[in-house]
């Protein structure tokens, strides 16, 4: 088939490259519209507080001030991005109502003729806050007596009645009892910023025909349009979302944060409204990659075979879950690794804290699991006295193997990939590993796959 392909497989020059390197590509924030207003956000200066009142009277006297929007202006203020695909409950506030749950949470949207006037007015909004105890550590958040972040009373996202996403295969406890070695470790990772060159932003423009055109650098136009339609309670046919070239996403532009409030502002003022994050908002307010804490316990035989793996993972979702509940499911599906392990138990918790929310980032739920897993594999190799290549061949999965999530492996090529890496770096593999393949294992007749 390869020989017949004519265009697929060719390194044609990318169609947008020249525009990027000559500065001619138009990004969202490069657009200008006459009469365009600037939106800047009044944000919580504290990590957790009751919001008792907002006073915009002084801000309104700033020359160029146009309007201030608060929670009561937002038709459907409490939302959940993934409600589009049935995820509940609605938990995040477009603008804070009676409580702020993280430092930087949006409270009042200020509209002004210039960016400078908007910033000046933001600084003059008075907030009446009563600070509350805050929690920043995933395990402290689950301890009795911890400050509760959510509006429903626990600090975990609930998965069909369970406080974590569970995966169960075989009997890990029996296998631990039978194992020659137990290898246990805790792994921690910090929150990380997606760091796109272009910050999150949009411009909402009222059109003469009563519709609103929203120019946005979202990674998912329909996520943004459909959520905006729900939040503003307007039919989708009044919204026209236009993307284009995104200046880096890495998952940081999958949340729906700027479009609903900018579109509402355009509706209220009948003027184009620009809402583009500053770099400090991008770093301190927009979602990060979650911090993770991951506990591994592996039961290993002297010949290197891992016969049981128990993983308990906590992802720090911050104050709102956004896309993180999905991350834990993806994590639970993958943290067992590309290895054939007959007994696996995984508990993956999506934990709320008073940190800036986390959400999607490249390798969502998998990257930090892979870090923990592959360092763990090195430790196992050391415990059983094997080199790090051997331990991976001994445990590598093959096509047809039952995965912890009970799907049989297909498209497995771990063995071939490790062989190729060994060849690339000139590492001589023993003959048995050079001859190994990912082809399905031979099975005794009648044995269930």
């Amino acid at each position: 088939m390869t020989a017949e392909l004519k265009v697929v497989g060719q390194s044609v020059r990318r169609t947008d490259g020249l525009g990027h390197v000559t500065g001619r590509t138009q990004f969202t924030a490069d657009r200008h519209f006459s009469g365009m207003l600037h939106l800047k956000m009044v944000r919580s200066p504290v990590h957790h507080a009751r919001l008792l009142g907002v006073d915009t009277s002084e801000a309104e006297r700033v020359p160029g001030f146009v309007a201030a929007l608060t929670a009561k202006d937002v038709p459907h203020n409490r939302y959940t991005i993934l409600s589009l695909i049935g995820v509940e409950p609605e938990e995040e506030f477009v603008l804070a109502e009676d409580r702020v749950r993280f430092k930087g949470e949006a409270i009042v949207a200020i509209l002004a003729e210039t960016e400078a006037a908007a910033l000046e007015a933001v600084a003059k909004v008075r907030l009446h806050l009563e600070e509350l105890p805050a929690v920043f550590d995933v395990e402290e958040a689950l301890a009795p007596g911890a400050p509760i972040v959510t509006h429903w009373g626990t600090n975990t996202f609930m998965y069909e009645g369970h406080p974590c996403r569970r995966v169960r295969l075989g009997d890990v406890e029996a296998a631990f009892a039978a194992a020659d070695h137990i290898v246990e470790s805790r792994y921690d990772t910090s929150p990380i910023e997606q760091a796109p060159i272009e910050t999150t932003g949009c411009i909402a423009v009222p059109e003469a025909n009563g519709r609103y055109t929203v120019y946005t650098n979202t990674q998912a136009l329909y996520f943004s349009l459909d959520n905006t339609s729900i939040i503003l309670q307007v039919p989708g046919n009044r919204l026209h979302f236009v993307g284009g070239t995104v200046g880096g996403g890495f998952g940081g532009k999958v949340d729906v944060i700027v479009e609903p409030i900018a579109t509402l502002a355009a509706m209220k003022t009948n003027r184009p409204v620009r809402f583009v994050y500053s770099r400090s908002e991008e770093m301190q307010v927009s979602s990060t990659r979650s911090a993770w804490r991951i506990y591994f316990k592996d039961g290993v035989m002297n010949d290197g075979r891992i016969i049981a793996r128990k993983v308990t993972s906590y992802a720090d979702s911050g104050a709102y879950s956004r896309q993180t509940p999905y991350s834990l499911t993806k994590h639970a599906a993958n943290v067992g690794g590309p290895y054939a392990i007959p007994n696996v138990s995984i508990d993956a918790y999506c934990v709320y804290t008073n940190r800036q929310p986390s959400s999607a980032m490249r390798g969502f739920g998998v990257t930090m699991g892979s870090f923990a897993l592959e360092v763990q594999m090195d430790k196992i190799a050391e415990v059983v006295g094997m080199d790090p290549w051997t331990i991976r061949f001994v445990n590598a999965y093959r096509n047809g193997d039952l995965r912890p999530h009970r799907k049989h492996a297909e498209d497995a090529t771990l063995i071939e990939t490790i062989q190729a890496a060994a060849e690339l770096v000139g590492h001589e593999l023993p003959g048995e590993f050079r001859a190994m393949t990912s082809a399905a294992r031979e099975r005794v007749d009648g044995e269930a796959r």
Partner: protein
Amino acid sequence: MSKLRGTGIAAVNYPTGMNLGGDPSQALVHATTSGSFVVTLSATDLGQGLRTVIGQIAAETLGVAFEEIVVDTADTDTGPHDMGTFASRATHRVGNAVILAAREAFEALLDVAADEFEASRDEIVADGEGNLMVKGVPARSMRIAELASMAQFKYGRTIAGRGAWMKPRSEVDPETGAMDPDSTEAHACTVAEVEVDTETGEVAVLSIRSAYEVGRQVNPDLVQGQIAGGAWMAMSHALYETTAPYYPSPEHSPKDFSEYLMPGPNELPEIESVVLEIPSSNGPYGVKGVGEMTANSPIPAIVNAIYHATGVRIDSLPVTPEKILRGLDELAAARAEGAQG
């Protein structure tokens, strides 16, 4: 003080797509009067080159040159629904949708060719060079561009196609976690070499060498771009980046790139890779996807290499010079204790 060198490896699998709520992408394809083809999507190009690879897939399916394809993306008034560009899904999902749309358009083109050649449809073949012809009769051959134009002005027909591709929703069993979480899996194995300065605790990554198995490569240069970019991001995650330098304390969080550390050009290691192509069963032309995964295996490979170099096991990211120096101190204290005992 010394500079210690070490090597570490890591191997990973990576899933394509999201299963959570059904994962659809749609595409439309139509021919213009000049015989170019427009692919219309609402999917967004993040700078990874989606427009380019989608153009290649459409050109391949239609049997025309890459230059004949116009890819119109990211407009909800014109583009049919797409879930979004994330989860390493776009080339796989959108590519499959584009193949279906292009095939339907191609069928319409075959109808025109059959009428024009006064032949039956199953006698018409594409030569892959932009022509349709009656099989075995090179004299009865015509440019696809010319046929597309004829469809509009002589036959009054549309040359258009619709394509939809979806990974159906997989409900997760809440007790056992049984699920179908992905469409296919790509693989990587990285060997990292580091040099650790025991005086400063600083880590220099000397090389990141990897093998990737990504199904079919649509555009090998763009795959290489992902591999180099991912290696850089992984190195940055392993050694530099955090929005909470005193985690779990949220204080002293960075506000800009002067406070948020990342490696610069001087820190870049030698990056070398080999790409295996073992086509997947369900991707467009066997694609699996290479978007996210290139930032994965280098992280544990670097951390394992640091252990190999120094004997210091660090289980928390990022691996800062402070953590390495503390680890070296603990090792030295344990050795001294061992010598005394």
